């Protein structure tokens, strides 16, 4: 082999934001296009990131392309700032973006990257939410070919997807889609809102914050621009139902820790077989506890 090869030891320090500047510019152009065509899946040349496809590489490329010094970043996974994947992503961004602040408080963040949840605390117009997307196309369940799906999107033809909902109601008397609920943006494109629960769909509608979606493996970027209509795909006479967290008596359950009865809850089964519930959004829960809320102060660790 050619002996003149050397390891790039001098390049151990990566450039700001890991990606090269041309790559970041391309991502930003795709973001602009996505904002201009609400809900349209804009293709982009997704780069390989140093974590696995499916671990948030799409969201990460958006974050890295948008972030600058002075930005304040929050990273959550399943609503929590301290879950393994959130920690991993945050550490990587801290490593490659010196000068960027991080926070766990939703209110303080200017940029929020999240997987599977939209924070409970309402977002404001100065914030950008980046959601990680495993499957960008809601039509994939009824049409395998991407070329054909593109035509269906272009013509706003979602009849086959609605027929699937129809069949659901016929068979189960309920729409069985639990998360990733197909949502129509600005009256035309239907998007996959990423695996957020139905509980979070309402937060997309007329959000003051820009909401961006990044799919790394499937190489698509799409957006819900601020103050834009976002409506779950439903029949006129069958209302959309979010998770209600009601118990057998129809009573809304509350977080065992902070007492909130308006948040998305995680279910825990205890050793004696009974289920207990706590907020999935750890920041929301912590802030409520700090403000003196809480049913029981018995917090074991």
């Amino acid at each position, binding site marked *: 082999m050619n002996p003149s090869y050397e390891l790039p030891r001098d390049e151990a320090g990566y450039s700001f934001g890991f990606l090269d500047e041309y790559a970041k510019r391309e991502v930003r152009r795709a973001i602009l296009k996505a904002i201009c065509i609400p809900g349209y899946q804009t293709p982009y040349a997704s780069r390989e990131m140093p974590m*696995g496809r499916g671990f948030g590489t799409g969201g990460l490329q958006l974050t890295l392309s948008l972030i600058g010094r002075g930005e304040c970043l929050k990273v959550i996974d399943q609503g929590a700032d301290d879950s393994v994947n959130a920690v991993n992503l945050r550490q990587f961004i801290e490593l490659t973006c010196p000068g960027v602040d991080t926070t766990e408080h939703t209110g303080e963040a200017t940029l929020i990257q999240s997987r599977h949840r939209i924070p409970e605390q309402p977002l404001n117009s100065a914030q950008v939410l980046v959601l990680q997307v495993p499957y960008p196309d809601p039509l994939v369940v009824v049409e395998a070919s991407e070329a054909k799906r593109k035509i269906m999107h272009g013509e706003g033809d979602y009849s086959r997807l609605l027929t699937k909902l129809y069949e659901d109601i016929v068979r189960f008397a309920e729409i069985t889609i639990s998360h990733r609920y197909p949502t129509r943006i600005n009256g035309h494109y239907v998007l996959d809102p990423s695996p957020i629960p139905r509980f979070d769909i309402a937060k997309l509608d007329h959000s003051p914050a820009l909401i961006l979606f990044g799919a790394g493996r499937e190489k698509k970027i799409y957006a819900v621009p601020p103050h834009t209509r976002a409506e779950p795909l439903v029949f006129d006479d069958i209302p959309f139902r979010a998770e209600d967290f009601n118990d057998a008596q129809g009573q809304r359950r509350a977080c065992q820790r902070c007492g909130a009865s308006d948040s998305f809850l995680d279910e825990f089964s205890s050793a004696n077989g009974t289920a207990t519930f706590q907020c999935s959004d750890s920041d929301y829960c912590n802030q409520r506890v700090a403000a003196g809320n809480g049913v029981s102060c018995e917090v074991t660790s």
Partner: protein
Amino acid sequence: MGYVAIRGGGTAIKGSLEALEALRAAEADEGTALSLNTIEHQLRLLTSRILSEGGLYHPPLAALAIKQMQGDTLEAAFALRAYRSTKPRLLTTPVQETEGMRVIRRISSAFKDIPGGQMLGPTTDYALRLMRLELADESPEVFRGIAARFLADTPSEALPQTFPKVVEALRRDGLLPASPPGQGEPFDITREPLVFPIPRSAVLASMARAETGSLLALAYSNMRGYGDVHPTIAELRVGYLPVLLPHPVTGEPVEAGEVLMTECEVVAMYESDEAGAVPVFTLGYGACFGHNETKAISMAVLDRALQKGMKDGPSNPSEDPEFVVLHVDGVDSMGFANHYKMPHYVTFQSDMDRLRTTQIKAEQKKSAQKKGQPE
């Protein structure tokens, strides 16, 4: 019960990485760390595979990736790709004719005698797969003597610098169609998004970086009967190809180095094309970094199958460009398979909500039917 089971992620990750590193060095006192040189040369085919799947020709970095990832080919190719993401594209090489390849091996299964001659070169094709127990304990002296002896024993007959291509002879005889005219700049899959339908150059580029096993499986499906490419290898060559770059001042191409490559051209039976035209053979092309013959052959077979699919519509998965291109990338597929290990608490909570509700509805329906009420 602790608050939120996923808390403490930072500590857990740290511990996990330490455990991983400890296993790498588990040989303890007796071991010496692998040198990159050792990996690059003694595991040269592994290095080749990583170069090709990583899509970056940098053998020492490929060796480092193999060492760091403890031999996991998917992870090693992945690391090389991620490294590549940080590098801007500064220059583009001009299109290279592989005729100028300095070959170490070239064969044709179509003709007994080919212009320039067959050259078997280094291959395991005819090696008996018997365990060579003497390799279990090689002394450094014996080991070092092997290459020296080979060089001393090999007569230094002057080999030609270049060999003519077999397919060119077929073209001259009118058995293969003329090379298709260049369709402008080749598609750059690292800089342009794939929007189907995609040009053949994008398909070829995707396959050149594909995971070897995935490519082989799809190509094999076509050979076995889910498809009908019956290939003959017109030529398979392995060798070094000069890398030319435009001179920064004059713009003239200058040789900047060379890359080891494998190239395969398969000839397949003709099919009834546009009526009236003279029938000719059809050609499938495969090429990738490093010495990877299985991959180059698989790629050539698939290229032929996909050309047919693009023309007449696919009748098998291996003829569908979308199916092939989107399912052969190792970084994509292994990443996604592994992401299922991440927490999915929220989505599973939603799943439970739906299942419980539908269970209740099913009960209601059943009891309603018992009472004889309509839906």
